[in-house]
């Protein structure tokens, strides 16, 4: 855990000037990110909006996961449950109730939050491996529920042909490009929210709990409430990512709630850099690009993924962005 602390965001003891410098750097990165998102669809090969939307949805998912693992020190192995359930809810409401995208995304996100509250309040009673196992077990229940309720989830066929209704009932989302800009905007807002949370007093307490829970307790913090809060927040944002994915990809399927999805998001976070704001975005981009452009290799994709993971763990233990942050001696 000491490793994470070293690469984490500015510590409480950092001088005000350094903190201001870092904030300026992060602001620049955010502006750069927004500009990149704006022009990406015009770049050939990687500018395929459908692919970009997928990357963004998973990037937000990884960021949400990272909020809990990197800043809360809580390794959940069941994040697919919030992502998947939310994608089902959003797909279902868009298809069968004919709701507009913003409403179905909101409902999906809310379902992620409610599920996070229910699961979180059970899981945070235990720590470490037991915490991870409880989240995994609860997530498997959601998977089983999805498999057994074809009326709601479509069983193994999933909910297909999810319509992209008009945004706010007014703006048509007919083309992939317009949907991409919606996804990009929500993604940016999500990441900005996470950034804000990390750098708030709440975030500082979280980091304190992560680094030394006993000490945080002795300082008078109600540790469990903080943990539950970050759990719910993370589940909510995972839900936001999931419900957006359902609208963007027009499909909600069992893959989204499967345990391997929970594993994939861990992989994205670790490859990109756990405990960095921008790491999970890079991690998601790397993993999804590999799945996309190496699809021709078939089963070998997982082998390549595994090899990259091993290389990451051996060579850059802090992940891609974590290592860059170390080079420039700035938290990213």
């Amino acid at each position, binding site marked *: 855990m000491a490793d994470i602390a070293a690469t984490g965001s500015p510590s409480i003891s950092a001088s005000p000037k350094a903190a201001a410098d870092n904030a300026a750097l992060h602001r620049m990165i955010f502006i750069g990110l927004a500009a990149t998102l704006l022009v990406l669809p015009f770049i050939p090969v990687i500018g395929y909006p*459908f692919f970009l939307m997928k990357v963004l949805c998973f990037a937000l998912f990884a960021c949400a996961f990272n909020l809990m693992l990197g800043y809360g020190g809580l390794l959940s192995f069941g994040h697919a449950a919030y992502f998947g359930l939310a994608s089902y809810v959003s797909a279902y409401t868009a298809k069968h109730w004919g709701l507009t995208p913003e409403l179905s995304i909101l409902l999906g996100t809310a379902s992620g939050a409610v599920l996070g509250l229910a699961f979180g309040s059970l899981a945070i009673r235990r720590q470490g491996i037991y915490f991870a196992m409880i989240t995994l077990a609860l997530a498997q229940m959601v998977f089983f529920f999805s498999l057994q309720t074809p009326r709601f989830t479509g069983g*193994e*066929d999933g909910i297909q042909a999810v319509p992209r209704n008009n945004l706010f009932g007014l703006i048509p989302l007919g083309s992939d490009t317009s949907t991409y800009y919606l996804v990009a905007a929500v993604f940016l807002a999500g990441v900005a929210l996470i950034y804000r949370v990390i750098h708030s007093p709440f975030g500082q307490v979280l980091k304190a709990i992560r680094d030394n829970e006993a000490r945080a307790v002795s300082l008078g913090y109600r540790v469990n409430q903080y943990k539950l809060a970050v759990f719910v927040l993370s589940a909510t944002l995972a839900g936001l990512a999931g419900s957006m994915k359902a609208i963007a990809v027009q*499909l909600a399927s069992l893959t*989204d709630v499967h345990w391997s999805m929970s594993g994939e998001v861990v992989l994205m976070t670790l490859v990109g850099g756990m405990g960095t704001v921008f790491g999970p975005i890079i991690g998601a981009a790397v993993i999804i690009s590999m799945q996309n452009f190496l699809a021709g290799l078939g089963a070998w994709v997982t082998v390549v993924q595994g090899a990259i993971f091993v290389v990451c763990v051996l060579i850059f233990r802090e992940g891609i962005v974590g290592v860059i942050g170390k080079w420039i001696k700035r938290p990213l």
Partner: protein
Amino acid sequence: MSYFRMNRRSLMAGAAATAFTARSMAQAQQPVNIKIGVLNDRSGLYADLTGEGSALAARMAVEDFGAAAKGLNVQIVSADHQNKPDVGANIARQWYDNDGVDAIADVPTSSVAFAVNQITREKNKIMLNSGAASSDLTGAQCSPNTVHWTYDTYALAQGTGGAMVKAGGDTWFFLTADYAFGHALERDTAAVVTKAGGRVVGAVRTPFPGTDFSSFLLQAQSSRAKVIGLANAGGDTINSIKQAAEFGITQGGQKLAGLLVFVTDVHALGLQTAQGLILTESFYWDLNDGTRAFSERFARQRGGNKPTMVQAGVYGATLHYLKAAAATKSRDATANMAWMKGNQTDDPLFGKGTIRADGRKMHPVYLFEVKKPSESKGPWDYYKLIATLPAEEAFRPIAAGNCPLVRA
């Protein structure tokens, strides 16, 4: 040669004719570029019965058709959808949007097939489905852009369910994989059995995917039903047949009926284990001279493995599609589909047939029994033909399918 001759002629004509006609003639000689994507499982459960073999079948169709001589420049690409609808949908979209693919062939696994079906319709391309089982592809979810070639759950139920009852197997017990596909198989087959005068004495739901079927098989055994219907697929089917053999169920006089079993499954199980199993397929390599000749060529390139009905279906569908493209001289999906539905199909594997308005390809299906090891004359000699169902009996009547294309 004819290309050069035509060119000279058009040059000569050019002296007299206007520039416009000369240009249009030159354009007519340009080969039409056709790209067919074979999308299936290349690494998982269905890799043996679809996989690279389907891509080979598509290439053989291009070769046999002599596409180059008929003015078509055909390219076959392939990809692995890993049996996941989102992966399949992603590949299909990229193929259509970026890679200029005109038709997607094979697509086993119904969930992936539905996703590709939807995208194909949206992009107005063509899906030549051979691998998927669900009869909804030509029913509630039918599309003007899809042909469902080889088989479907309705035909399997008709074949195995109906013919078994006629042969005396009138009491049934189902072993059903507990997910939507398993339930659908059980429901359809039970309906056929009851309609044919049989009786369903019981059913048990097995967890999906399952490894231990012993307690369910004991229930099936003690039900004393004459036929045990296996409403499952892939690994579940293999496991349940293996364990049934260990319990000596077929030796005890009960018949095992596989509702979705392919020749590669029988090959994997071996005759000792699979003997006596009843199943329905629409193609078997040893049916007639045409199927034998094709299968021999196929096996030479596949390390001795005979083609499955799915791979045969990819061959037949690709051949028919190429005929359409050569006749219309275009990549236009609407024109090609109209040609495909308007003209009889004819290939050495399925014989003559038609494609209905709902996309259903019509051909006979066959009920087989797996031979005893003593009856088999050599490798891949696995099936005894029990009955042949004409297409009209095997496939769901067009009016009963609820296909919106037909009602309209």
